[in-house]
């Protein structure tokens, strides 16, 4: 507590705990606030309530087993994390994934981006009082989850990308479902925009709120839509293309207003760009072809081969009992997740278990900017600031 000067004379500030159980913290975030009336003087995020030791657990599992943990880091974008981890291990191994699998990976990670942005838009709008937007967003998200369920058997914890390719051949007709979604979706984005983009209350609640200038954003390591809303066009897909992103044409939306409203516009524009990429991926994906690299001893053999070839059976047994051992070394793989740069630093010591897996979680880094965004503003705007950062606490705490 400190003493501040007010019109009525000196007064004491109040310290208030927001969270860890608070609906608008999007999980279990605790913010220790120092308030002067309604004004936030200091906001100190306290994290760790969801810490589950995923990085430590990875060290006790084989490279393939650890994939299932990467889903659980960011539960709104499981496929982006699967992809980053698989690419890192594939880089360690020097493994090339077939083009068909790469395109399917691109398509599904872009659907993941739309999925994550929909949850963000729905919950952010609900925090600010626009309840109906959430119902609209979750309606469309359901369609995406059905596509995930169709290809992987799971709605959220997909674990669909495996080292060397994909877990399963996608079922027949899945692309028709994707096509139906992308034909329907542009008009749905228009619906959200009709509700919000020129809505006076929405403008008043987001414009000029939570300013984060480009210089501060870079210094604080902030990436993703938050950085692009400050005018810096850093997108891993363009800077360091992976999984054949260099073959796709899309724009990186940026704004220069640096506020909550700019971040809203950037994310909505990103959904439209994702649709562009999905559309291109659909024409690129060959109807037939391998979905896994030809790497005996690393990628499990086909069931049919195991019945006729002895080597296949031996490899199958060895992969699932011992795993495989990449050469000693370390790689850092960046991927553009819906929240920014997600990085997997995987260290191998030549054994079948990763020696160290470090996750550079964009939410963790972005959350550090919360004091910058909210200090000096009102308590009510703090809700807008937390919402606009699009944090996933599972990823913050890991």
């Amino acid at each position, binding site marked *: 507590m400190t003493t501040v000067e007010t019109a009525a004379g000196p007064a004491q500030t109040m310290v208030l705990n927001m969270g860890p159980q608070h609906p608008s913290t999007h999980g279990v975030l605790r913010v220790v606030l120092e308030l002067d009336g309604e004004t936030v003087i200091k906001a100190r995020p306290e*994290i*760790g309530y969801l*810490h589950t*030791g995923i*990085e*430590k*657990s990875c*060290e*006790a599992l084989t490279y393939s087993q650890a994939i299932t943990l990467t889903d659980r880091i960011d539960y709104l974008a499981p496929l982006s994390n699967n992809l980053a981890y698989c690419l890192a291990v594939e*880089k*360690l191994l*020097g493994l090339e994934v077939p083009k068909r699998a790469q395109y399917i990976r691109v398509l599904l990670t872009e659907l993941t981006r739309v999925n994550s942005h929909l949850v963000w838009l729905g919950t952010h709008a609900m925090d600010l009082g626009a309840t109906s937007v959430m119902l609209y967003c979750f309606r469309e998200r359901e369609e995406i989850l059905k596509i995930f369920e169709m290809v992987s058997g799971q709605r959220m914890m997909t674990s669909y990308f495996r080292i060397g390719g994909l877990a399963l051949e996608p079922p027949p007709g899945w692309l028709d479902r994707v096509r139906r979604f992308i034909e329907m979706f542009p008009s749905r984005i228009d619906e959200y925009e009709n509700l919000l983009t020129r809505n006076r209350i929405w403008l008043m609640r987001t414009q000029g709120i939570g300013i984060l200038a480009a210089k501060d954003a*870079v*210094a*604080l*390591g*902030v*990436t993703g839509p938050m950085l692009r809303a400050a005018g*810096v066009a*850093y997108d891993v897909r363009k*800077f*360091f293309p992976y999984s054949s992103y260099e073959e796709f044409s899309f724009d990186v939306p940026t704004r220069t207003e640096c506020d909550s409203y700019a971040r809203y516009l950037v994310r909505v524009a990103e959904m439209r760009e994702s649709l562009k990429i999905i559309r291109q991926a659909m024409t690129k994906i060959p109807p037939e072809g391998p979905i896994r690299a030809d790497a005996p001893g690393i990628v499990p053999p086909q069931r049919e081969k195991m019945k006729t070839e002895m080597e296949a059976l031996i490899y199958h047994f060895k992969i699932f009992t011992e795993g495989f051992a990449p050469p000693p*070394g*370390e*790689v*850092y793989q*960046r991927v553009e997740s819906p929240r920014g*740069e997600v*990085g997997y*630093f995987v*260290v191998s010591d030549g054994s079948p278990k990763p*020696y*160290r897996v*470090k996750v*550079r979680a964009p939410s*963790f*880094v972005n959350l*550090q900017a919360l004091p910058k965004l909210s200090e000096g503003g009102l308590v009510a705007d703090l809700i807008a600031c937390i919402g606009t950062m699009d944090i996933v606490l599972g990823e913050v*705490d*890991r």
Partner: protein
Amino acid sequence: MTDKPVDQNPIIQKLRGWDEKAIAELSEFRGELTIVLPRGHLRRVAEYLQAEPGLQFDLLSDISAVDRFPIEPRFELDYHLLSVPLRQTVRLRVWVPGSDAVLPTVIPVWPTANWHEREIFDLFGIRFDGHPDLHRILMPDDWEGHPLRKDYPVEGFRT
């Protein structure tokens, strides 16, 4: 050592031209460049890499620690740097002995290091000299031990 292709890298040439002693070792694996620094040079090199035109490593993506127990020096710290204007990346590595696990902080150069360093202090027990707010971040404040050390069992200590 001068014949390796790593030495042709413009980042290395610039760094060499600035201070020959700043580089202890160089390596490249899968196209990723790693510069090993002597511990005492970390802060100077960080400032140079961030400010020098032509390098401009303005964004610190990540700091990771690796415990090589029982090998000494025990801890390896990896700084993953990114230059947004020049679209290049580099990894800095510093070795820290277990008996004297202290490093200078890089917060004045990259403010984002604050939470990364707190996380490493929490999970590995490495201290950062000059850190303004060094306390646990993920584990409870009264936790004993540092869980990501290799001599800390995965299932925790049974009491």
